[in-house]
């Protein structure tokens, strides 16, 4: 089996306009989830 380079068609993401913006959205959402879980911990301890 030979490994061959294939031209990659780097499609745009269906939302957010660019991949970098989408990555930023995922990471910010994750920060928000952790912050919410931290508050959840504080409220219930």
């Amino acid at each position, binding site marked *: *089996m030979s*490994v*061959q*380079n*294939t*031209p*990659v*068609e*780097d*499609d*745009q*993401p*269906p939302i957010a306009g660019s*991949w970098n913006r*989408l*990555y930023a959205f*995922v*990471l910010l*959402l*994750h920060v928000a*989830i*952790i912050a919410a*879980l*931290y508050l*959840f*911990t504080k*409220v*219930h*301890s």
Partner: protein
Amino acid sequence: MHPLDWTILLLTLFSIVAYGVWKTRNINTSQSYLQGDRDLPWWTIGLSVMATQASAITFLSTPGQAYNDGMRFLQFYFGLPIAMVVLCAFALPLYYKLNVYTAYEYLERRFDLRARSLTAILFLIQRGLAAGLTIYAPSIVLSELMGWSLDITILVMGIFVIFYTVSGGTKAVSVTQLHQMTIILVGMVVAVIIIVFRIPSDIGFNGAMDIAGQLGKLKVVDTDFSWNNRYNIWSGLIAGTFLFLSYFGADQSQVQRYLSGKSLAESRMGLLFNGIFKVPMQFMILFAGILVFVFYQFNKPPVHFNKANVLQLEASQYSDDYRQLNARYDSVFELKQTAVRTMLAATRNNDETLRDTARAQVQRLQKSAAGIQGEVDQLILKIDDKALVEDTDYVFLSFIMGYMPLGMIGLLLAIIFSAAWSSTSSELSALATTTVVDIYRRTAVKNRDDRHYLNASRWFTVLWGALALFFAYTASLFENLIQAVNIIGSLFYGAILGIFFVAFFMKKIGGRAVFYAALIAEAVVLLMFYLSGNVAKINGILADWASNSSEFFAASCTMAIWMVKAIGNVSYLWYNIFGCLLVMGIAWVLEKAKPERMG
């Protein structure tokens, strides 16, 4: 089990498997068998990636872990979304550009054949072992349900999943996983709603949250850092990121899932979907365990959750002792229930003094109950000193069988089986693909026709299935299944990830340096793991040496004792980061000491 539950269980499982086999009936080339037709949309990839990771162990062990230890296990997944973003940005474009079947093919392009082969072999060892555990976990369920021996059950479970993976290859895995994951998500939401309604009406959902919070079960985020604390925000974010980079970026069981996408964009979207929904999904599964915990504050739980052990105890010479312990457990439960109600009433009335007094009483009674459970464990061990007394994995199962309404038992068991088959089939498919592509076709049997490699792929799937069955027979040696899977992964992922990190980010380092660095790093990680289980024994020997030797040697032994204790206390999640950094560091030193001429 009621006929309606049987109907739901069998109909769900057989229809999904039959659909997968029918949908992949035209697979007739090794490429379509190993790689699929590369036509999957992002939602199928996302659900397939989630289904591969969420094995039956997730649904058996995780609620039990929350029941015993609260929700802090969620932090284990905090690194996952970060890893998804890193992989989407760096690894996926490279895999697509090189049009690879496996992640390890890239390593031959970047380094040489031995780096590719070593990484493939490390993957085969760890994934082969883990596949045994993913068969073993649901077999516990079925054996208890059917009254079959565990050995027979493991055999039946394994043969079924081997059949449909052999039949349709990687595409059968993906198309069945789409439906399996849908059943899993819908079923878990319904289960959580039902458990909420099972909590006594005078307590309600808010009361359940108050009770769980007061008893420390809702502590999700722990900001205190400690090397030996398995689950805190730092181990989750730092070590967890490394673990998931390795699992999703270099473990063929996952790489194969997203390389089946119809474009790079679809694969990226599938991984980001996983990054967004994984933490909320795990929260829901852990929360189910918390609700079961609250439920059992008002409904007496079994003194021991493994029914098979209890039946053995009742039929033994220790049955009277067991009955006495059970009666004591009943008394403690009644007192505890009253104390919990007092604690809740005081919380609602903002009476902090009474609340704290009642909580201290509940905690004392919990200790008494745990003491009685320990005595029951001792009785079980008197009958069979090799019996498995750890019953965390039975908590959720016991609740399903005892308290879920008609029809839901069948659906929840379908979830457990779906999860088991979805992850096992991914593993078998990936093991066969790596064996054929990276070892068999690359170095052992070259230049044969496609039919030969298609048949070889099917036979290797059968072979790995048989090995997974063998490992499943030894799985009962592990105390907690989900931890066992993660520990096995952490022993090998660090070195694998280190090789990929060097490949991606240290462009001047060649194959020789990374090969030896990976071997040394793997040996160090295995040594650390050995030390962690034998600290007392090794330090005992060192202390003996210290007492019978010269001052200088005694000081060396004392220092060694300190080091063994420090290394032995490191939690397994950190092995991922140590292994990775060791490979990178040693490879850099080796390359500096003896530079390799880069071609």
